[in-house]
Every structure is written in C-alpha cells, then in structure tokens.
C-alpha cells in the first residue's frame, strides 16, 4: 500500500526560491493581464527558476569556452543566441555591447603595435609624434 503523503508535501517541500509576490508584481505590470490564479503563479515561478538555471548554465559554458571564470554579458548573449526559443523573445532586449572605452582602444593599439614586424630604421612613424607627449 502506498504511503499517504501529508497534504502539504508537494506544495511545501518544493518551495520556489523566487518570491511569488514579486513574480505577481511583474506580471501585473502588463495591463492586458487580468487575473492570474494561485496555481498559475506557482507554475510560472517554477518555470522562471528553470529558465534562470538554464541560462546560467549555458552562459557558464560560453565563459568556459572563452577560458574565462567570470560570466559576463557577452557570454549571456551568446548563450541566448544559441537557444532559438530564448533568442526569439530575448535577444533584442539585451543591452547593447559596451562601446570599447578609450582605454581599451589604446590597449588594443599598443598590442597590435607590439606584434608588427620592425620597420626599416629611419622610417617615419606617427608613433613618434605621440610618444613625445606621453
């Protein structure tokens, strides 16, 4: 004979980590949405947790591929692109990639300078102009 589970087992032991009140607030931001019953709220909250875990996992994979320990926006973006259903609704909402700062531009230029083959002695280089002022 199957053991009789206490009534509240399923609803209590699988408590969502996300506060349902906040989820409800987010849903209500859309005026077209009328009423949402209690079970719908619980289901969407669980679905949201699944989604969050999924995105986190995929983003971590991307970060790993790029040999990074810290997950960043760009890793998220790639993860979103790779999953069609998510990409369909989310890709356009992601913030634009940050424009490289001047610092970064200078760093990149310095790197490519270092990688170039040495030019013949005496060749005039614009670097000389800038080096005077650094």
């Amino acid at each position, binding site marked *: 004979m199957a053991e009789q589970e206490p009534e509240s087992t399923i609803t209590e032991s699988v408590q969502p980590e996300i506060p349902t009140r906040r*989820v409800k607030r987010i849903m209500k931001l*859309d005026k077209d949405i009328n009423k949402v019953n209690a079970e719908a709220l*619980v*289901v969407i909250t669980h679905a949201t947790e699944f989604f969050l875990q999924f995105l986190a996992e995929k983003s971590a994979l991307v970060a790993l591929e790029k040999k990074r320990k*810290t*997950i960043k*926006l760009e890793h998220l973006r790639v993860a979103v692109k790779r999953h069609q259903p998510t990409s369909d609704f989310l890709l356009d909402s992601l913030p634009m990639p940050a424009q490289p700062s001047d610092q970064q531009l200078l760093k990149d230029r310095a790197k490519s300078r270092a990688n170039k083959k040495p030019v013949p002695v005496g060749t005039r280089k614009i670097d000389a102009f800038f080096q005077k002022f650094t």
Partner: protein
Amino acid sequence: MVDNIGSSSEGFKYNIYAADASIHDSVEDHSTIKEQDRLLPIANVGRIMKQILPPNAKISKEGKETMQECVSEFISFVTGEASDKCHKEKRKTVNGDDICWALGSLGFDDYAESLKRYLHKYREAEGERANHNKSSNNEERD
C-alpha cells in the same frame, strides 16, 4: 501678548500608503516603475545561479543584473501568451494549464512537460487540503 499659532487642524497631514494599494496607480509612467517592482531580487537571482554553477565560477555584476532583466522578460512573455489565450477563449483568469500551454507554444517543451506533472500533484494536494478544511469546518459549525 498672545502668539497666534495656527489652528492645529492645519498642522498635521498624514499620508498613509497601503503597501499593496493599486499597483496600477504607480505604473502609469514607465519611468517611475521602481526596480523592485519590475525585477526579481538580485540576491535570489545570484543564489539560484550559484547553486547551478561550478563552485569556482563567478558572475559579474553586469551579468547578474542582465539575468534579472532576462528573467523578468521571461515572466512577462510567458504570462502574456497565456493571457492572450484566455482572452481568445473569453476567460478572465489565467490558470496553471494556460501557463503550461504557453511554455510549450513558446518552445520550452521541457518545462511544459515537467510542470504539467507538478501541476497535477499540486492540484491533488490542494484538493486534499480543501477537503480536509471543509470537513473540519463542518464539525465546528455543529
């Protein structure tokens, strides 16, 4: 000499804000929507991410904030789909089946399937609880 202090009825004005008072009042203008209204708490988001990620993984602040936004989009998107279905079927209240349907129709079939099973158990548990309450209420009325 008597100081002419204004009558006390002018003095005090109490502004009482009910916490849950019509959320719609505060969201007419989107720029005034507070982050706490449209995003899930970053602490919860961060915690759930940490649980699933390898221990040495780190998430940038920007990453966590972006996750908050993504997750709110997800909620709005899925609920919107479910709500549209209800409108079409002339129903006012979105229920658990509608959410499961929306998840499936948007391509999140895995979630739809496992949540359908969860929903079934949830309804059973709720049904049992309601029955238990009903019978104990009946006893009390006597």
